[in-house]
Every structure is written in structure tokens, then in C-alpha cells.
């Protein structure tokens, strides 16, 4: 299955990547998507997560074709 992984803002700059395409034969949680996309960097506690543009937590299981996003606390408005 194929997962698109996106990073935004300071997280994008720290990781030096904005998007990763993952191929996996196993079912993955969002936390496992992070680990696989970020080469074993631990998931920071304050990071927010979304699957297909809706907020989720790290235990959510992703599906083939899903877009998973990681980003720092939001600061709009």
C-alpha cells in the first residue's frame, strides 16, 4: 500500500523534507508512519497529526492511498 506523508512549517524545516511516499506491505498506525518516514527519529510529543485532512491520534490505522500529515502547534489568526 502507498501512503503520502506531509510535513509542515518548523517540522518541515527541521526534517528537511515536505513530502515522503511510503510503500508498505503491513498495516501501519500513524505513529508507525512517522517512524518509517522519519528514519527512526522519535515522534515529538507536541506534533499534531491528520489523516486525509482530519485530525487523528497516533494510534489511528492508515489505509492504502491515505494522506498523513504531521505539523507543529498551529499559530494562525
Amino acid at each position, binding site marked *: 500500500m502507498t501512503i503520502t506523508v506531509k510535513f509542515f512549517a518548523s517540522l518541515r524545516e527541521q526534517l528537511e523534507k515536505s513530502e515522503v511516499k511510503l510503500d508498505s506491505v503491513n498495516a501501519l498506525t500513524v505513529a508507525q508512519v512517522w517512524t518509517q518516514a522519519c528514519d527512526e527519529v522519535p515522534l515529538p510529543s507536541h506534533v499534531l497529526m491528520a489523516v486525509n485532512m482530519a485530525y487523528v491520534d497516533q494510534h489511528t490505522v492508515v489505509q492504502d492511498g491515505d494522506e498523513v500529515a504531521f*505539523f507543529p502547534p498551529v499559530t494562525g*489568526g
Partner: protein
Amino acid sequence: MPVIVTPDPFNPWQALADHEQQLNQQGHYGAVASFVGTMRNHNEGVGVQSMWLEHYPSMTEHYLAQLAQRAQQQWSLLEVLIIHRVGQIELGQSIVLTAAWSAHRAEALAACQFLIEDLKFNAPFWKRETLQDGQQRWVEKNTSGVCVPSTTEG
């Protein structure tokens, strides 16, 4: 319930006037509450010269549309308007506008405050400031909009 995310500068008062004219519901509402957030020349004690606003295209619009719907479900509102800038923002330019139209003032005031407060903590936008010395920094988090009157602080 328009939700607009735009890289172009906007005049919030013109936007409100135009939107109200389009809405064409004069006489049906008795209250309009609005909030406008503007680019300041200082933040957390440091001079700021400009700002870059990043967002998550599609998710941001989707989140704001759902937010507007939630406000409509929670209060009796005739209309909701949300406008948010993205991209490069200069001093004094408007960043965000939230507004709510209702028959009575309680609903409009509560909804307008709900919209800006929820947006600040949940809508995927990120600010990177360019300070007066040219350095750049990401704003780390938004602070609460719940007020402590200054007279109780002193």
C-alpha cells in the same frame, strides 16, 4: 457561509460591507459581531517587520468550512464569514476576519468569539516572523483569548 483563504491583501471593512450587501438580508438580522486580526510590529517583546503564513492547502479550507458549520449548529445565525490571509504579510495588513450575523446580539458575539478562538488553536496555519534584525523565527504557539482584566493584575 463563505470561507476564504487568500494570498492577496484584503480590507476587512470592505469585505464586511460587500458581504452584507451580497447577503441582502437587511431587516432579518439585528446583530453583527466581527473580529479582525492585524499584523503587529511587535510580538513577545521583539520588533517584527513582516510575516510568512504557511497553511495546509485543502485541509485549512476544509477545517474552516467545518468550523463555520459548527458555529451555525451551535447558535442561531443568519451568516458566518471567515477570511484568512496566507503567504507574505506586511505590517498593518489584516490577517484574519471572523464575523457572525444573527437576530440577537448574544448569538453573534458568542459565535464570533468561538470562531476566532477555535481557529487560533486548530486551523492549520503557521506563522514565521521576520524580526527587525532580519532573523526569522516560527511562532511556537498561540495564547488564550480569554481575558484577564488588567485591573486585577496590578
